[in-house]
C-alpha cells in the first residue's frame, strides 16, 4: 500500500503535454486552480463532519437534524465567533496586510 502523497506523485509523473492558458493572466489561472482544489477538499471535510454528526446522533438516539440544530449562547457562542474572526483574518490577510503591491 502506497501513501497518498506517493500515489499523487506517481500519477503526476506520468502526465504529458502542456496546459493551454485560458485566462488573460496566468497567475490568476493558477490561483483559480488552487481555489477549486481547496473547494473540493472543503466538500470532503464536510462529508467527514456529516458522518460524525450522524454517528453521534445515532449514539444519542436522536435525529441528526436535532443535533445539527444545537445552538450555543453566551461564552461558547463568543468562542465560536472569535474562531471565525481568526479564520477570516487568516484567509483574507492579503486585504489587511499593510504591505503595498510594488
Amino acid at each position, binding site marked *: 500500500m*502506497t501513501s*497518498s502523497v506517493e500515489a*499523487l506523485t506517481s*500519477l503526476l509523473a506520468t502526465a504529458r503535454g502542456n496546459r493551454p492558458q485560458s485566462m488573460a493572466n496566468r497567475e490568476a489561472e493558477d490561483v483559480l486552480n488552487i481555489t*477549486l482544489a481547496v473547494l473540493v477538499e472543503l466538500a470532503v471535510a464536510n462529508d467527514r463532519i456529516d458522518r460524525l454528526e450522524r454517528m453521534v446522533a445515532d449514539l444519542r438516539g436522536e435525529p441528526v437534524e436535532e443535533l445539527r440544530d444545537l445552538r450555543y449562547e453566551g461564552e461558547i457562542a463568543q468562542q465560536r465567533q472569535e474562531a471565525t474572526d481568526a479564520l477570516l483574518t487568516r484567509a483574507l490577510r492579503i486585504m489587511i496586510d499593510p504591505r503595498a503591491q510594488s
Partner: protein
Amino acid sequence: MRVRDLQHAVLPRVTSEERSRQEAVVSLRRLLNTRVRPQNIDAYSAEGLPAFVEANGRQPQSPDEVQEAFLMSPRYRRWSAANRAAQEMIWVSVGEPTYRDLDRMTQAAADLIDAPQKLGSLTLDPDYDPSPEVADLDIHLQPGGYGMDRGEHDVVAGALYECGGNVFSFGQGIGRGDSKASVIIKLLESDYEGFVPGKMLDMGCSAGAASAAYAAHWPDAEVHAIDIGAGMLRYAHARAESLGVAVHFHQMDASALTFEDDSFDLVVTHNVLHEIGADKRRAMLREALRVVRPGGVVIHQDVDIRRPPSLIHQVERDWDTHFNGEAHWATYATADLIADMHAAGFPREAIVEHDLAAIHGANRWYAISGKKPG
C-alpha cells in the same frame, strides 16, 4: 449488465474520503456543464464578438477567428479555465486511489490473468507499437494516455479509464444506468429485427465495459475486443474474468486487423471515431467491412457533436480540441462519414445514420451503420 459502477476485483478500493473527493468533482463538473457552459454563446455575443469587432474592424470569418473572439470574453475564459481545472481534478480524484491500491490491484489482475481456467482470453502483441497518433497524447488529459504500459501485469491505464470515465460521465449528465452497448442492442432490435450475432468484435474497447455487457447480453456469442495498449487490455481482461463473462481481448490496431475476412456477424466501435485521424478512420471503416460476413452489420457509435446549429456552436464544442487533448474532436465532428463508409465499400443504400437516445439520462448518441451486401 450495468456498465458503470460495477464492483470487481481489479477496481481500486476507494476510501470514503476518496469517494467524497470524486463526488465533489462530479458536482463541480455538473455545475459547470449545466449552469455555466450554457452561457458561453451569450458570453460570445455580449463580450467576445464586440471585442473582436472593435479590435479588427470586422466580424470573425473563420473558425480560428471565432475561437479568438471567444477568448476575448472574460466570462468564457473563466469557464474554460475552470473546466480545464475540473478535468485535471477528475484524474487526481481517481489516480490517487489507483496508485495507492496498485499493489493489491496488480496482484488481483495477475491472479485472474494467470488463472489456469478462464472464460475468455488475452492476446498481447509485443511487436505492436500502439498507434502513436493516440498513444503519444494524454487524450482528455488522462495521465499516461490510452497506450500506457508500465510492464508485467500493469493495469493502471485501464483503472484510470474506467474510474475517470465514471466521474466524467456522471458530471456530464450521463445516467448511471446508461450503457452504449444497450443503446446499440436496442438499435439492432428496432432496425435489424431478429439479428443476433454468433460472433462479434468491439474495436477500441478500452476497459471493456461494452464488450463485457455484450457478452452478458448474448451469452452464446463469441465476443472479441481490441485496443492498442497492454495496460488497458490486461485490466479489461481481468475485469471481464472477475465479472464472470467471456471476452477475448487482443492488442491490435483497428486499421490493420489480423482477423480473417468475413469472420464476424457484428462489428462495433464505441467512441473511437472521435479519437482518430482521417486516414486511420478510413482504414478502420475498410477493415470493419472486410472482417464482417456478408449480411453482417457494422455500427460505429460516437458522441453527438456532429450537427451544431451554427459555426459559433461548433467552435464552442471544439473546446476539447484546444484544452482537453482531444486532437481529433473537430476532425470527427466535420467528417463526411457517409462518404467514408461508401468509400470503404458499403453501397449507399446500406448506410444509415442514427440519432439515438441514451438508455438513461438526457444524453444522445450518434451512430452510423452499414449492412454488408450478400
